[in-house]
């Protein structure tokens, strides 16, 4: 399978005020098309930072990210934005939706931003399609504050998927949800990956969530500490993952 995302020797140095923080200290990785990858690691290990660099939300201090064949560090801010618009989708832990817009409008937002009319033809079908995928039929006209937290996150997933991005990034999307709602969201992500070949990178603390992945990258102190290959499993059983994590002392 072709490589869709490559990172080479990524470092990130935050300099808030007088001090400086080495959030990433040289990270390299390859992600194949259609893969479901989970990033785990203790708090402050650099997971979110890595995700932001991979998705082009921020620029690395050094190193390269190559997304869908384009070297992000070479792009201007506007070019990076456009690449992000067409090739990536993001789901964050909080505040994913624009409160003013209803479900359909929120999902159609990337099209609107790109200057397309999401109420017509193919785009309309695509939106209906992702609404179907995340199981939100019948709630198209609801505003975010009329949805549960889990439904809100599923809208966010639907929006991230609607442009058919090369890769979907999710940073602790279930962090704010209860057990069952969390599973519903993970099922939606899994469905997109399994049924449609969507590449997914998921940051999580939860081994239950990480167990959906084909491969788990374990981070520690700004580096990829280890890699656990689980392979594709319909059951998402957590046993093998927990055993490996225990071996690593996590």
């Amino acid at each position, binding site marked *: 399978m072709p490589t869709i995302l490559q990172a080479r020797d990524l470092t990130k140095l935050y300099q808030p005020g007088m001090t400086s923080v080495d959030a990433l200290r040289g990270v390299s990785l390859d992600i194949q098309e259609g893969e479901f990858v989970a990033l785990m690691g203790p708090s402050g290990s650099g997971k*979110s930072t890595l995700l*932001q660099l991979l998705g082009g*939300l*921020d620029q690395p201090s050094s190193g390269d990210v190559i997304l869908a064949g384009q070297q992000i560090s070479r792009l201007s*801010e*506007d070019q990076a*934005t*456009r690449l*992000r*618009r*067409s090739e990536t989708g*993001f789901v*964050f*832990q*909080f*505040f*994913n*939706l*624009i*409160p*003013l*817009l209803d479900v359909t*409008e929120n999902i159609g*937002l*990337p099209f*609107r*931003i*790109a200057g397309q*009319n999401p109420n017509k033809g193919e785009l309309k079908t695509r939106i209906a399609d992702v609404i179907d995928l995340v199981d939100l039929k019948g709630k198209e006209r609801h505003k975010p504050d009329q949805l549960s937290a889990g439904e809100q996150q599923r809208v966010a997933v639907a*929006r991230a998927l609607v442009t058919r991005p090369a890769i979907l990034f999710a940073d602790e999307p279930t962090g704010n949800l209860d057990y069952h709602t969390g599973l519903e969201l993970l099922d939606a992500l899994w469905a997109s990956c399994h049924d449609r070949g969507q590449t997914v990178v998921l940051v999580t603390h939860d081994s239950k969530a990480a167990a959906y992945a084909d491969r788990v990258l374990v981070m520690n102190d700004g580096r990829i500490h280890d890699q656990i290959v689980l392979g594709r499993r319909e059951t998402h059983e957590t046993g093998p993952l927990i055993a490996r994590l225990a071996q690593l002392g996590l």
Partner: protein
Amino acid sequence: MLALVPLAWRSLTARRVRTLLTVIGIALGVGMLYASLATSLGIEQAVDRTVLEMIGRADLRVAAFEEQGLSEASVAAIRATPGVALAAPSLERRLYVRRAGGGTAAGPVTVLGIDPVLNPQVHDMPLVNGSAITSAGEPSALITERLAREDGYGIGSELTLQAAGEPMKIKIVGIVAGDGPINGAAGRTVIVAIGLAHKVFAATGVTRVDIRVVDGTSPTTVTAALTSRLTADPYVLSTPPDLEASLRATTADFQATLAMIAAVSLFVGAFLVFNTLSLTVIERSREVGLLRAAGATRLQVLWYVMSGAMVLGVLGSLLGLGTGAALGSLVGMGVQATGAAPYEQPRLSAETVAIAAWIGLFVTLVAALEPAWRATRITAIESLRLRIDPGSARRARLRWLVVIFVSVGAVGLLAWPRAAGDLMALRSLAVYGLLLVATILSPLFIAPLARIVGLPFVVLMRLDERLARGSLSRDRSRTALTMGALSVGLAMIVAIGGVAQEARATATAWLANVIPGDEIATSIRPVGLGEPVTVALKAIPGVGSVTPIATFDIAFRGVRLDAAAVVGADFLSDNRLSFEEGSRSDALNGLDTGGSAILARSTADRLGLRVGSTMAFTGGAGKALNLRVAGIVERSIPGRSGETVLVGWTDATGFFGIDGADFFAVRYLPGRQASTQGAFEDAARSLALEPATLNRVQGAVTDALGRVFGLFDALALIAVLIAALGIVNTLSMSVLERVRELGILRATGMTGRQVARMVMVEAGILGLVGSVIGIGTGLAAGAMMMGLGTGFRIAFEPPWLIMGLAVALGFLVSMAAAYYPARLASRISIIRAVQFE
């Protein structure tokens, strides 16, 4: 209680731009107030000084109407009138003096002859040097300090006065301070005993007699007695209150409008403070919640907000004094340039300065009370909320505006210029109240209006329009506050524009109604009716009628009136003048036969005359004339300071001593104006007349009006400027509040430029909605300004140009104000926005 005050300071410095803009807003409001107070003071001081200089401590003044002055008989009659305690005569004439050493003439001086004994009892004449004059002994004189300096005289110098009689050598015995007692003598006055003055001018009359009445007698009784006794010479009688009232009449409107603009600016400034602090409280509600959780009392929280307001108020008021001083002198220059009112550089007491500063601080604190109170209602639970969402409980309450309004209004009444009477105060309050009502009602209109004005944006930027409009309707009271300030400022401009246009239209219609011609030919010398000018002009092919008109002064019952001599038949055939009482043809024909007068409605009302009343005039040397009021017209020909009394030429030449016409009104034959005008104007010039079309005359009148209203409009712009500062604050705050939302948009692929554009669209819609509401309110306010006092006149021609300008101004000001918030929005870090705090 004050434990949180340092935190308040920090909260101000954390949002420097907002703090700075708010301080500037307060400063502009206070500055406008200060400028208005200072200008009013300058006007009042000028009026007071004029009154004092003119009449001094006299209770009445009888002034001669004609050059030869009041005769000895008149002076004697005054002295003999019961109730007159003292009558001090004086003579005032101009002449040229020779320089001390003989030689060249050194410019004109005014000679004032006084009674050395009586005069000091009514007029002060402070000496800087030397001693007063006496009637006895060697001829002596006082001169002004300025004359002494300019022409090089000193005590003991000799002065040669020469007029009608023998040259007279007079010794200077004293120097009078400054420019001396006579206003308008350019400071060059020579004061001598009146007997000496009579010798110099070989005259016997006096220019005026200043009267003090017996204690306990009312000047009105004495006035009545004088009127019946003074039959020998024409005269004008004035009292200090009359004089003051007539001077004030011209200034009252001006001062009232100025005060109203100041009140509105201050009100808009209060909007700004209220809005900014409300925003700050919402923004800091989590912090306040934490403080409450940590045990801060409500009182501490109250002080936390109020001390912030105090800092804003003190800084704003101090800066405002500086701004006000600059603005005040600009307005003063404007007043002098437009000639709208008498004005002199005001001597400002520390009190005036303090009043402006205190009012600024007071208004700021009143505006801060409600946000402060709202802050105290924030509970500890607030700190646990995830989303900063302006819940209804924390929304700015528009009702509070009423309190602010009443406070500013009350303060405004305290500082109300005393010259502008109760009716003006009422009118200003009504207009001011209308502005408030419009602001309070505006939330109802925001959503529908935003939809309408958003339409043009929909075509180009659908999403931006949708999001921008949504963001404006999210917290309507905040939007209403922000926009309200803009609307109020624009409303003032539109209202003033409407009034100005109406005034111009009235002036134009007035002239067209009373002048029987398309063109006016003015002469610098009186053109006798016997001269062939009229005939020559009428002979030009295409000229229909030529009618001579003269304007002059007459004295009636001790009052100076403007008068005009006209040919009644010409007015009749040209169908000029709107008669309210009396028969048109009888009245106009009556002018030509003599013995009749036509009055304007305002003159008739002022003098209490009706059709059929008789006006008795006294000429010099016992001549007398009775004119019957034959008609009353809506408007008459404008004179120097009012509408003229129309009389026929027979009476004008026979009794009032008029030699000829000042101007000719010329009517072209129908459709011949274009072809005749050139020939006519050439002919007129060859006859030493200055031709001008009626349009041009109207233009000159309306230009003068335009300048005064332009000054007001410029001042109302300050309110718009303050509103712009409010827009910057609100939009910035709304951007900061939506950081997460904007972060999501950016993460979803919106470019920085797109985000900035969205904020601009928001501002554009805000500006347009504000303009629409402002125009509506302004038209209503304009109708009110014109209507109150003169009977309601709701239907006036809308000032389209000003309305168009107001829309453009509202839009552009909002767009300019959006620049900073838009930049702020485009620079939002996506990562920070989507992180949990």
